């Protein structure tokens, strides 16, 4: 039977997806640092939506692991939480989603568009250039 095995390195096993997110984050940081001539990353700002299925502490922990011996080793991770904002497609009202109720507080409408709350983004990088 066709069988596909992923993840040969057994020390990289983890039951948390924050690890793979931390690896993607590191990839982006290294690439952006290179583009901007940064040789040592000191601080990284992230935006994480309140609806994102990510635990910031766990992400920071995983990032510490994966960034060892890279230009991002020891960098500070600052997380900005982004609130869940939705807009009603029936009456146009924008509202903050509270208590996990994704219904329009104005008209009760259920057709809504999520404006924010699912972010998993890098917003800035600080570091030292070679010059």
């Amino acid at each position, binding site marked *: 039977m066709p069988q596909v095995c992923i*993840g040969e390195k057994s020390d990289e096993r983890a039951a*948390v*997806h924050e690890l793979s997110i931390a690896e993607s984050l590191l990839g982006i940081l290294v690439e*952006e640092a290179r583009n901007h001539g*940064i040789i040592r990353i000191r601080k990284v700002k992230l935006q994480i939506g309140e*609806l994102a*299925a990510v635990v910031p502490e766990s992400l920071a922990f995983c990032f510490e692991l994966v960034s060892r011996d890279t230009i991002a080793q020891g960098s500070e991770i600052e997380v900005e939480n982004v609130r869940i904002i939705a807009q009603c497609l029936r009456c146009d009202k924008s509202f903050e989603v509270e208590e996990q109720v994704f219904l329009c507080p104005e008209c009760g409408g259920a057709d809504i568009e999520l404006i924010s709350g699912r972010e998993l983004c890098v917003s*800035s990088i600080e570091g030292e250039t070679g*010059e």
Partner: protein
Amino acid sequence: MAQIKVPVVRNILQANERLAAENRRKFDDAGIYVLNLMSSPGAGKTSLLEKTIEGLAGRIGIAVIEGDLQSSYDAERIQSKGIQAVQINTDGGCHLDGNMIQIALDSLDLSEVDLLIIENVGNLVCPAEFNLGEHDKVMVLSVAEGDDKPLKYPLMFQICSVLLVNKIDLLPYTDCDMNKIRERARQLNANQKIFEISCRTGEGFAPWLSWIEEKVSGHKKLQRAKN
């Protein structure tokens, strides 16, 4: 040495998003409708697949990708029904991603396939952040897990077009309140289709099977119109 701060607005998951979009293009070119099936461990994903395959046999060409931490037991269950199935072992990883699907697609013959169902790793958190290129996300919740699940896994409920409440044959033996599940799911995602089923007795399967058939034929028409 100079200190600088550079603004970069980049989605951390963009690499996976790109792979998912490539997969999606592949599915659409081949006219295949794809579901990403998620639940906590043991809620009944493989049982649902087995019953769904039985119900649609002969009418719809089906293939399955099985994601699992280890073992190929689930894929063998599907293959014994005469269906193409490929197993992805994540080796401890808690979710499937776009890249794994791309690799798995290489070992599937898609020529006779109308419907591809991907059984994700049993987990209600991690798979929620990783698109695979599917057209719809479907979740299974078993009544044995309790009616408070929507509150604990809001993102999963938010993103799934379908909620299958499984093991309703066990309702008399649990304190699970179906009305609570319905009400909480409505608050999280009022457009979500809810089917109450039992993979054990087959109860409630007819509306679920019609939903899939409609989706598959709707998708075929849409793709034909595009080409």
